[in-house]
């Protein structure tokens, strides 16, 4: 799901609701009062955002640990 520079790519995922391929689009990440914008695979029609497993278990978890002092 990453290209050579480490950016997350949409891969071959298709939105189950809309039937269209996901695209790399801006998304707002909001957590415990902090927010920032990041490009993630999203459905261009309905806006559903796909969180790859490696992101959830990697950088997202790191953000949670930082903000929650887990």
């Amino acid at each position, binding site marked *: 799901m990453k290209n050579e520079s480490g950016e997350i790519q949409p891969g071959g995922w298709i939105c189950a609701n809309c039937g269209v391929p996901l695209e790399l689009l801006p998304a707002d*990440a909001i957590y415990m009062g902090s927010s920032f*914008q990041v490009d993630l695979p999203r459905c261009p029609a309905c806006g559903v955002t796909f969180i790859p497993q490696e992101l959830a278990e990697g*950088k997202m978890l*790191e953000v949670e640990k*930082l903000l929650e002092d887990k």
Partner: protein
Amino acid sequence: MKTRPAATAPGVLRPIPERQSLCPVCLKTLPAELVRRKDSVFLLRNCPEHGEFSGLIWKGEPDFDAWTRPRDTPPRLPAATTSARGCPNDCGPCPEHRQRACTVLFEITRRCNLNCPVCFASSGGARANDPDAEDIGQRLHRIRSLAGEVVLQFSGGEPTLHPDLPELIRRARALFPAVQLNTNGVLLGQDADLARILVDSGLSWVFLQFDGTQDDIYVKLRGRPLLDVKLEAIRRCREAGLPVVLVPTLAAGVNDKDLGNLLRLGLALSPTVRGLHLQPMTLSGRNLPGRENPDLYLTLPETLQAICAQSEGLVRPEHAFAPCCEHERCSFHFRYRKTPSGRLLPLRGTEDECCSPRFAPDACCSSAGEGGRAEGGSYADPAGADGARRAVEAVRRAWERGETTGVSDAFDAFIAKARSEIFSITCMAFQDCRNVELERLRGCCVFVYAHPDRLIPFCAYNMTSLDGTPLHRTA
């Protein structure tokens, strides 16, 4: 021995049996009991030879019972000795020890470039030659084998006096996830290159002895004015990208009223200064004139209240956490994000969130379902099965320098920014002969490496009787 008011008057509550302490005169193990009088808790014991002793161990808010937590049984360090004379004489650890290690101190020299009136290690003066890099390198491997993946602290004496310190740091970083330097900062302030050399060697952060913002404090505790050289040390660390934690030794009537100034200075110097680590003075090693005066010593809750009261509303008692690793009466911690406007946002959110530091009987991360909760509830963050590992991870997040390279997306950028905004206030209430509880020693995760191949709980290692006779430390 002078004591605070003896807890023998009406109002004494609930003696708790099966506790043990030491006679402050002969360090003999004695049965003890905790008794409560109003908002204070005293440790009472009776030595057949030296009489009754009462040591204050808790005073004020947070309430003693509310702070008390159920203790899970964590994984233990393998015993390195057998039980022969009983705790705390068989360290260590002996089979009675009940905790893993999160930190190991390695005293690489007994020499020091100060001769402080207050020094639990009684360091200073001319000493025998230091062990060389090869010798220390072998001992580092032994520590790794005995204790596992701990934070390795180089200490002393003054460890910057060891000529091989950069090489020792390099060797330690190959074995341990983080390496800390406990220093008075004099050489860091005087040597233009030292901070950079230590960073390049792999040093994770500096624990800088920093007792206050006024030179009269240093004159009393360290024997000479040192503020300028310590500020210079921080400046050089900033230039080198070396994180610093300010570590005041707190003596009531000397610098306990300077905590607010220390906090504001630390915040002004963040992110180089990652936080404050408060250490109330103990009656160990060298100490001030009148060392037996109980009014010199601060308990854990008194320290917590002092930092809150002097913070101008930045730090609040309800933000405090009990530890997840060591015994709950040994420490507290606050972790914040510092906003650009200078506010401190407590990590782990607000009181209505499930992992609030405040007592939350139904908190999602409570251990009530596993091991029960002490009557009257407790602060959250219960002792987990692997508190030592969590403690290592937590201090690395709090004190390590955030990576500034390899930022590839907004997550990386946010992580780097958030790390630079974290500011922690921690306190470690070390024990001494006035107030030692063997229960706390057995639950200790902060060890001192003693040659050959022994790990001794920090407070046991530094324990001295009222006349200065050490329990473990050798001259």
